[in-house]
């Protein structure tokens, strides 16, 4: 650069010296054109300053361009130029000029221009004093070179070097440069730490001295010089303290601008640490993988944007029937039949808002096409500054099956219960009909008696009417009886109809005594026919019970017919049916007790509970349902039905029903 400036100054001087030589005019013009070109290319302007006047008498075109003055305006004043020099560099610029004039030497300086619009240019100025014959400085000629580009490049290089160095220093790996002689030329801080030696101590010493096997170290760097590089060359580096660490060297040659090898750049990696770390990571990963693979749920790690599967755990593979490799790269859309792209995207957006998106039931399709239900949770997590989705899918086949089984078994049970209710109602009715059937003759008698009375009384009435004179008073009496007996026959029929009718049970307040009397009325014929004496002991002050009168009648009818049948089997003995009602208690609360005792065959006390079992019967024609139904009826009404063998002969059945506070009318 200096060279150029000086040459330019020389040619300029020549130019001025031969200015008036006409014969050189053409050559000069030519030369000037070259000059302009060369000045523009080299960003170098030239100028001439008249020292006596202190004014410039020449500025080249390039000088105008550098200073950004318009040549049309003529030569700028020194003041105008001075104002364009960067304020910090003005003193230096003036000093350069003064030095060249005063000391009559060439003077160089660098500085900055502060141009309009905030543009800053770096310039280098070269000055050359022109002396007259007396040896006085008359002119100062010089060049001004725009070195902004150059400065910028230099700065960049400088920054780059600083940066590289800091990178090198920041590296945890020991880095060294080695010269062709095998001596260390530079080290970083990690090398200092690894060897326990200062940088100054290391530079200039043999690289091989710091290893347990110097020959191997030498072979290593010789290999680098020979082959250009080594990779993962194992050595053991010895610390000044004697502590040895395993390292792997990666080294390559570095060259100067001409491509000549000037040294080796070698980086050692302390693999003791790395080995341990790797082990730790591997262990941790294995541990984590084990956890993940043994998790009961299928886990899918998805890339956030597209939902592409990055990793899965074993349950994910096993549940879907795909291998891990097959799943990676797929998206849940490939097997989650409830998902479509829009849904998945919407879910991802919600997770991004911090939500865990859950679905009670999605269906996953296995590789073989079969489906199974899963519960799905989707959440967001960050790793390495990137967003991922974690999809957790729990196989809920068992639960769904259980739920369905439960649902169907519920329905089943309800059906069964309804059927049972139906069956029981039907059984009750059949049982009543059976009982009534057994009593048919007796019942016929019960109806027949009042009818016989009616017919007889009617005949009597007719006779009284036929008398001369007619006995009206007697006729009236006969008719009264006809009415009474007819009504009585009707009542009996109504009771039978009531018992045979299948009506849903309705609980009302009923008088137990009244029910006892009604049932005895129905069985009176049978009792008389079988020559059974009836002993009644009914407590007239009993409270009412809440129950269904038809059902209670059925129970008493059942107990009384059982008693009659039990006594029919006993010959030549006193036959007595005893019906007793009294106030007792049930679970500490007042209750009405009705006891039906007979003097029949009875049973052994051990059989008591068996009596109430369904299909248990001791009668040749019995169904064995009577007592079972009776007990279930009484228990439905909150009561108890028990049996007991009498101490003398026969048995006693007692029903206990909770009493209501109101007394039945």
């Amino acid at each position: 650069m200096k060279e150029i400036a000086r040459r330019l100054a020389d040619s300029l001087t020549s130019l001025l010296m031969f200015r008036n030589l006409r014969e050189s005019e053409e050559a000069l013009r030519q030369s000037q054109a070259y000059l302009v070109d060369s000045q523009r290319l080299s960003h170098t302007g030239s100028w001439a300053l008249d020292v006596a006047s202190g004014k410039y008498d020449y500025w080249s075109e390039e000088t105008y361009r550098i200073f950004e003055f318009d040549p049309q305006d003529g030569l700028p004043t020194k003041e105008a130029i001075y104002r364009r020099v960067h304020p910090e560099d003005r003193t230096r610029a003036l000093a350069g000029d003064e030095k060249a004039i005063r000391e009559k030497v060439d003077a160089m300086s660098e500085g900055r221009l502060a141009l309009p619009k905030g543009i800053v240019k770096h310039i280098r100025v070269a000055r050359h004093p022109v002396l007259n014959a007396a040896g006085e400085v008359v002119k100062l000629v010089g060049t001004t070179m725009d070195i902004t580009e150059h400065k910028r490049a230099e700065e960049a290089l400088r920054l780059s070097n600083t940066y590289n160095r800091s990178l090198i220093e920041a590296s945890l790996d020991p880095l060294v440069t080695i010269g062709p002689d095998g001596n260390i030329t530079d080290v970083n801080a990690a090398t200092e730490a690894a060897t326990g030696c200062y940088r100054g101590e290391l530079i200039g010493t043999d690289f091989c001295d710091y290893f347990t096997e110097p020959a191997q170290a030498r072979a290593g760097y010789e290999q680098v010089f020979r082959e250009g590089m080594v990779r993962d060359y194992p050595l053991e580096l010895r610390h000044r303290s004697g502590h040895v660490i395993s390292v792997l060297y990666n080294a390559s040659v570095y060259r100067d601008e001409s491509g000549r090898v000037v040294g080796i750049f070698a980086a050692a990696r302390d693999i003791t640490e790395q080995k341990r770390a790797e082990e730790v990571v591997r262990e941790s990963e294995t541990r984590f993988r084990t956890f993940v693979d043994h998790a009961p749920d299928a886990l899918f790690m998805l890339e956030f944007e597209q939902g592409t599967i990055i990793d899965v755990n074993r349950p994910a593979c096993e549940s879907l029937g795909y291998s891990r490799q097959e799943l990676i790269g797929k998206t849940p859309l490939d097997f989650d039949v409830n998902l479509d792209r829009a849904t998945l995207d919407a879910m991802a957006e919600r997770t991004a808002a911090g939500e865990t998106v859950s679905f009670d039931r999605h269906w996953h399709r296995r590789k073989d096409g079969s489906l199974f239900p899963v519960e799905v949770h989707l959440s967001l997590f960050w790793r390495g500054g990137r967003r991922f989705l974690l999809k957790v899918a729990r196989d809920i086949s068992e639960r769904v099956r259980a739920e369905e089984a439960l649902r169907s078994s519920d329905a089943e049970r309800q059906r069964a219960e309804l059927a049972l209710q139906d069956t029981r109602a039907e059984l009750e009715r059949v049982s009543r009909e059976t009982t009534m059937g057994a009593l048919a003759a007796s019942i016929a008698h019960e109806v027949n008696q009042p009818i016989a009375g009616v017919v007889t009384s009617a005949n009597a009435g007719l006779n009284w009417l036929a008398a001369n004179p007619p006995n009206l008073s007697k006729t009236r009496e006969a008719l009264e009886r006809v009415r009474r007996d007819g009504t009585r026959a009707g009542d009996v029929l109504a009771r039978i109809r009531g018992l045979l009718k299948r009506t849903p049970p309705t609980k009302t307040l009923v008088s137990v005594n009244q029910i006892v009397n009604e049932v005895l009325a129905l069985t009176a014929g049978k009792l008389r026919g079988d020559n059974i004496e009836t002993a009644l002991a009914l407590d007239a002050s009993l409270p009412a019970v809440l129950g269904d009168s038809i059902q209670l009648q059925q129970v008493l009818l059942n107990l009384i017919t059982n008693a009659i049948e039990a006594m029919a089997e006993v010959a030549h003995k006193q036959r007595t049916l005893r019906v007793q009602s009294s106030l007792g208690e049930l679970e500490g609360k007042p209750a009405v007790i009705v006891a039906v005792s007979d003097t029949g065959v009875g049973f052994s006390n051990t059989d008591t509970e068996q009596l109430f079992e369904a299909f248990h019967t001791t009668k040749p024609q019995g169904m064995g349902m009577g007592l079972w139904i009776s007990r279930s009826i009484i228990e439905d009404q909150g009561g108890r039905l028990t049996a007991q063998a009498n101490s003398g002969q026969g048995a006693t059945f007692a029903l206990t029903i909770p009493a209501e506070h109101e007394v039945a009318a």
Partner: protein
Amino acid sequence: MNEPDSTVFVVDDDRSVREGLLDLIHSVGMKAKAFSSAREFLQHERPATPACLVLDVRLPGLSGLDLQRQLRQSGQPVPIIFITGHGDIPMSVRAMKEGAVEFLTKPFRDQDLLDAIHHALKADRAAREQRAKAAELRRRYDRLTPREREVMQLVIAGRLNKQIAGELGTSEVTVKMHRGQVMHKMGAESVVELLRMAETMAIIATVQSQGQVSRKSAPPP
């Protein structure tokens, strides 16, 4: 009615039937008395006039058939008309065998009952007369000496005096004398009448002692 001195007894535990029957019988001008049980009837003193019993087969306690048997065994038989709500054939057969006049099923036609009552009363009247007659003969018979009774047995058996004397180891004169005493004490005009008397007593004996001696077992004269 032409039975002013007779009584109809009614035993039925059913009030409708009992009261109806009582009134029906009254309405045809007969005396009637009703009871609700056999026991009650048995405790009641019966008049010596003709009577009959309208009896329900089924009664609490002592049944109708039991009462029938008991009455017959008591020597004071009463013609019985059974009434029943649901009479079955074996029951009615048994009742009739035991001497029931009629077996009626409720509800019955009043005329059937009244006819049965008339028939029963008539029979009772005849039976009573027969019983009175037999009792008188019995009184006469009781006055005979043992020898006279032996002679009477042989006379009504158709033996001749000589044969009787031979069998008894006595003289024909003595037999004649005993025979005269028998005819006198019994009040018989002829051997035929004596035989009829014996038959009358034999009927009673048959009734009283279950066919030891019966009319049919007696040898022809």
